[in-house]
């Protein structure tokens, strides 16, 4: 027994319980911070105990959903999984999550951990957990005031990966930045991406970040752009191109907001189909990432398929709740690409229901709201949806919509939460569905407001 580690775990678990009892919140960060103060090596000591090691999931978009899918698959395969579920993805949140699932003697009760890591925390998380697999999803422009420029993020990731000689890297090579970043690590890299021309966009959206070759600076040419700068690309300057796909998704079927399915094509396997109760092309990427990581862990296709079929939407990711006879669909928006994809999903499903967009500018949202102007909201102006905006920067959102050509008569700026929720719900007819698009802290406030109204459970109980 390691008394220091044991004390760290005890402090973390007790403070988490206290914070929840006192109703102060989820207790997903402070306990981990206390644990690392007691034992700075707590995270590395705990993760070393896992017999099947750790999987670290990183990327701008899709971490929570992908980690959740992979954890569900591993559970289907009979593993005991440690998982930072509430989206607490800094070193302290991860420490608290593992401590939560450890005995007071500092023994981890689990075989394998699936840990989502924040972009900025990624180098520290992999240094401390020495993962067996690193799953890299994408790199988008997100909260640049916190993370600095994309080039900086890409560089620190590259350094962190080079310092991990034993880890396998499962990477979305539809992202040219990630393909370039892992180029030197090709011998231990498993690539995934889409092989589906029908999902291609007509043109690169404005928020596309890495449309320039990371090697030589020439703008990339796309054979197909699927989602923002993710696609099948090549560089006319130096010949750099998307590497061959080890695991590919093809024959993709998106069925409204309810379901999606696709065929997995992997080397040395018969193609097989997966079917998931989630929607949007971004969830195809998330599911494919989980499939690729599960294959790298040696899990059989039947178990992967069963795990994905059992996956439900994560907190605020196309989550549906009923309140006062109305149906509310909640979709978290964090950055221009996420917002673009939600707009694409709503307009392609021809949804004309009222929308409530809640924009906050606290630290966890990114304090700079100028990202609203990097999103393509023009398609919304073509629909008949009335739009309500709220949150700390609701007026900025309304202004963005006005300049997207949205008729001002169909726009209304509501107050902050919880007032905005009540005002929005009273605009809906009984039986009607409304869509709520909150940023991260607005989602927390929305969840609190719904819990106070007896609707949804608090997020840390999920």
């Amino acid at each position, binding site marked *: 027994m390691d008394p220091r580690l044991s004390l760290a775990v005890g402090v973390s678990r007790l403070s988490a319980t206290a914070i929840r009892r006192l109703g102060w919140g989820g207790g997903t960060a402070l306990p981990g911070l206390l644990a690392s103060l007691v034992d700075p090596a707590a995270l590395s000591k705990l993760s070393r105990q896992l017999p099947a090691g750790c999987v670290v999931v990183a990327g701008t978009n899709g971490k929570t959903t992908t980690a959740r899918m992979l954890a569900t698959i591993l559970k289907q395969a009979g593993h005991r999984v440690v998982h930072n579920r509430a989206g607490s993805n800094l070193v302290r949140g991860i420490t608290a999550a593992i401590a939560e699932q450890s005995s007071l003697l500092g023994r981890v009760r689990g075989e394998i951990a699936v840990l989502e890591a924040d972009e900025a925390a990624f180098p520290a998380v992999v240094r401390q957990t020495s993962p067996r697999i690193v799953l890299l999803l994408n790199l988008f422009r997100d909260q640049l005031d916190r993370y600095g420029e994309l080039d900086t993020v890409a560089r620190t990731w590259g350094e962190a990966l080079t310092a991990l000689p034993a880890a396998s890297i499962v990477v979305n090579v539809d992202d040219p930045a990630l393909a370039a970043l892992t180029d030197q690590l090709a011998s231990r890299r498993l690539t995934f991406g889409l092989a589906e021309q029908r999902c291609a966009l007509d043109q690169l959206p404005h928020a596309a970040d890495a*449309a320039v070759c990371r090697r030589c600076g020439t703008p990339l040419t796309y054979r197909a752009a699927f989602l923002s700068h993710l696609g099948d690309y090549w560089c006319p300057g130096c010949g750099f191109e998307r590497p061959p796909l080890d695991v590919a998704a093809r024959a993709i079927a998106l069925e409204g907001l309810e379901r999606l399915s696709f065929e997995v094509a992997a080397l040395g396997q018969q193609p097989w189909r997966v079917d998931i109760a989630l929607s949007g092309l971004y969830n195809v990427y998330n599911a494919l990432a989980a499939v690729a990581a599960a294959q790298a862990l040696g899990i059989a296709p039947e178990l992967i398929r069963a795990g994905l079929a059992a996956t439900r939407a994560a907190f605020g990711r196309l989550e549906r709740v009923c309140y006062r006879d109305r149906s509310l669909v909640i979709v978290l928006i964090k950055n221009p690409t996420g917002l673009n994809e939600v707009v694409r999903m709503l307009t392609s499903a021809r949804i004309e229901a009222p929308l409530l967009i809640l924009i906050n500018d606290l630290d966890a949202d990114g*304090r700079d709201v*100028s990202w609203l102007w*990097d999103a393509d909201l023009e398609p919304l102006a073509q629909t008949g949806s009335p739009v309500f905006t709220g949150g700390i920067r609701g007026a900025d959102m309304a202004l963005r919509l006005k*300049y997207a050509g949205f008729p001002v008569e169909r726009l209304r700026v509501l107050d902050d939460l919880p007032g905005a929720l009540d005002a929005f719900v009273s605009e809906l007819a009984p039986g009607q569905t409304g869509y709520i698009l909150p940023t991260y802290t607005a989602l927390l406030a929305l969840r609190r407001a719904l819990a106070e109204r007896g609707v949804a459970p608090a997020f840390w109980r999920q």
Partner: protein
Amino acid sequence: MELTICWLYARTMNIYGDRGNVLALAQRCRWRGIEARVIELGVGEPLEPGRYDIFFWGGGQDREQVAAAHDLQGPKGETLRCEIEEGAPLLAICGGYQLLGRFYRPQRGELLPGLGIFDAWTEAGSRRMIGNVVVESEEFGELVGFENHSGRTFLGPRARPLGRVRIGWGNNGEDKTEGCRYRNAIGCYLHGPVLPKNPQLADFLIEAALRRRYGEIALLPLDDTLERVAQSSAVRRAQATR
């Protein structure tokens, strides 16, 4: 009537919503019945004199900024300088603003030459200056934006600042100045983007462009209620966060 907006380095220098400035210029023209065309001009593409009415240049990452600096060493930069001398309206934000000064001195490596349109220079700093900004400008009144830069810009004796910071860091975090003005050119660190929430700046650029192309023309007023609501909520936010 028709105006042509030249968006310099649109694909490579467009960060933190800078493109919103182009949307604001185009929409505020269209709402007044003025046709607005936006032409993107990238590295290696020549600048045709007399073709454009308004120039916009946004911020970018280091690598893209270096490419733009080199692209402007030659006839393209000379044309841009002449246009500005002749009164063409221009708005440059952050990285673009820095390259309109005399030079940019990086942490290490060679001095990056600028166009020298503003009597100003920029030095790379170690601290990143991030946050909401409120500026008092004699010419344009209260301006609000969001700054995010580590470069520190200093104004020479012939330079006129855009205004003084009431909240925020401004040009360099020391002398309280923000931005620079010369003829109809404006350079500043205000992301946000700056024009939608400060429509008087957008209208200044449009009016200067119309005057130059069509002679004296009065600009039709627009209903800016929502712009004012967003502007004052951003100012309140700046007061609360700094």
